[in-house]
């Protein structure tokens, strides 16, 4: 049973160092990214000013896929090696990924209306991203659907891993099916098919979202570590140990 009290002290020490950097970089990238996105970049020759939605839509969509990949990998590590921090990281990623997916959908809709003439179309790219959003929600719902937290963690981890099949489907949906959505223009074998004046704000905003993700993750993992300790102490109370007499999980530190 001791392995449940994984020693998070080392992680927390590392988090103390990383967190101010993540916060600082977020602010620097957001400010510079918004400056380029809103003031210092040209309007598109076809899309006009609406191209500015790209600078938040594309980074949000990248983060949606990145978070799900992180969720699936962390779930796999937690399931196979029973690494407790991986389980906590998976739990912490899900709401953040759901948030970015929601933003990709909403900003895409706000971009689609003026450019495609419709808020929504049931094509491969949009539908698969909507499924991604539901996968996140299903993951979070399943986690807390069992009285036994361990069973919830296991069931949701399996869902996360199986659902990963959706990530390559989203990525290649624009190549495999006819869709209104434009194909990739940044991550290409032949190099980005986008002018540097537009690539700069795009990459700055992408870095801002990534730094912010790290910042949010550290906050959530801290919360998850405390919740894990609470669960462990509660369990111990139930099994007859006085709560005051229990040493902290950190002091006990198996791992």
């Amino acid at each position, binding site marked *: 049973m001791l392995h449940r009290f994984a020693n998070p002290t080392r992680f927390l020490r590392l988090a103390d160092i990383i967190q101010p950097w993540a916060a600082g970089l977020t602010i620097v990238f957001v400010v510079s990214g918004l400056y380029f996105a809103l*003031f210092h970049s040209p309007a598109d020759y076809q899309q006009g000013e609406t191209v500015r*939605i790209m600078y938040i839509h594309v980074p949000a969509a990248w983060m949606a896929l990145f978070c799900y990949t992180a969720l699936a990998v962390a779930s796999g590590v937690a399931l196979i090696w029973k690494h407790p921090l991986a389980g906590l990281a998976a739990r912490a990623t899900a*709401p953040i990924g759901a948030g970015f997916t929601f933003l990709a959908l909403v900003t895409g809709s706000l971009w689609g209306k003026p450019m495609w003439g419709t808020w929504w179309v049931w094509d491969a790219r949009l539908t698969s991203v909507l499924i991604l959003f539901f996968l996140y929600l299903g993951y979070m719902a399943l986690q807390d659907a069992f009285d036994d937290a361990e069973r919830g963690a296991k069931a949701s981890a399996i869902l996360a891993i199986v659902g990963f099949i959706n990530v390559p489907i989203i990525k290649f949906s624009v190549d495999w099916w006819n869709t209104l959505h434009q194909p990739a223009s940044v991550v290409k074998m032949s190099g980005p098919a986008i002018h540097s004046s537009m690539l700069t704000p795009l990459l700055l905003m992408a870095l801002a979202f990534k730094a912010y993700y790290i910042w*949010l993750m550290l906050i959530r993992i*801290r*919360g998850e570590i405390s*919740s894990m300790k609470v669960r462990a*102490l*509660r369990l111990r109370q139930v099994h007859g140990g006085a709560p005051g007499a229990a040493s*902290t999980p950190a002091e006990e530190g198996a791992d």
Partner: protein
Amino acid sequence: MLSQFFSMGGYAGFIWPAYGVVAVVLIWLFIAGKRFQNAADAELASLNPRARRKSETTPGTTRETADET
């Protein structure tokens, strides 16, 4: 000049809501995360006063668990 900027070539009704919803959701994620962390820390402190360096709650008072988003 300024009004020209805010009109965004006639697409203000799409561009500003897009940036607005991003700001709202991202800030909300931060607040929800902080709330979750604080609630978990407070509950831990109430269960075991020694587990936290700086506990704001007195031992014995239990706060309800955080809503996780």
